[in-house]
């Protein structure tokens, strides 16, 4: 990753225009040619520096439902619990964290009812209490990491 890549990453985290030739416009702003920008973007996606590029949709406003939940997976059954929880297609992310609540996962479904069903299925299959922490209020969502 060189200085040009950094500039591309920083600029594209802020936004991207909706117009006939958006890459050409952004390339112009960055002092690049359109083919150079497209080539670098492709490389940044291919090598995983960017995990995605495109519109980011607001799940709840699209009619979907989301929640964050956690369980106290005991160390001796950690892998087993991981497998059970990850097997649910509704589980979008799952992280191990350094806390008594060892496993934190995000559930995304089309309806709130499916969230409840997924949570109870996870409780049933793992035998663990699921701590459901749906958002009550959103103060900020937006990520800008200086490259």
């Amino acid at each position, binding site marked *: 990753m060189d200085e040009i890549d950094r500039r591309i990453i920083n600029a*594209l985290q802020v936004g991207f225009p909706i117009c006939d030739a958006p890459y050409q416009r952004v390339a112009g702003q960055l002092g690049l040619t359109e083919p150079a920008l497209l080539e670098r973007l492709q490389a940044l*996606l291919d090598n995983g520096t*960017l995990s995605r590029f495109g519109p980011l949709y607001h799940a709840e406003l699209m009619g979907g439902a989301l929640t964050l939940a956690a369980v106290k997976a005991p160390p001796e059954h950690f892998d087993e619990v991981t497998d059970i929880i990850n097997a649910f297609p509704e589980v979008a992310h799952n992280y191990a964290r350094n806390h008594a609540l060892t496993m934190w996962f995000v559930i995304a479904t089309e309806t709130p009812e499916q969230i409840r069903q997924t949570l109870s299925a996870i409780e049933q299959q793992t035998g663990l209490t699921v701590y459901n922490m749906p958002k009550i*209020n959103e103060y900020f*969502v937006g990520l800008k990491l200086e490259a």
Partner: protein
Amino acid sequence: MTLDETDRAIMHATQAGLPLTPQPYQRIAEQLGLTAEIVMTRMTAMQEQGIIRRIGAVPNHYKLGYRFNGMTVWNVPDEVIDDLGQQVGKLEFVSHCYHRPRHLPEWPYNLFAMVHGKTQTDVDQQIRQISDLLGDANLGCEVLYSTKILKKTGFRSRG
């Protein structure tokens, strides 16, 4: 705010990403049998309504050197959480900030803020800054670091 068939078709065609071709909206339009005009109008409208949060790049934190990604959780009185949550959300190093329910007695925390740093020192300083901002309203806090990504997929709507 309602999404119709056309909006949903555009959403499905773009949620994996925008085509890397000189005229990406034209490309999407061709796939869907629409005009580029319509695709651009609908996407602009969805962005204005907040259905599209933004169009842009999502970097992998670790690849940019942000190895310390902490979920900071705070116990803040309910009466002041909206005011303070908005202030914490405005700090430039906070990527997500939410009010979530407590699970008493074991989980007294109701304010969640994700912070990101390249060093532990950076993150410690960010946590101190949040703590200073909350002042007396900070009744307790913990910082949870992810020790392993167990699963990570994009959000996909099948609706």
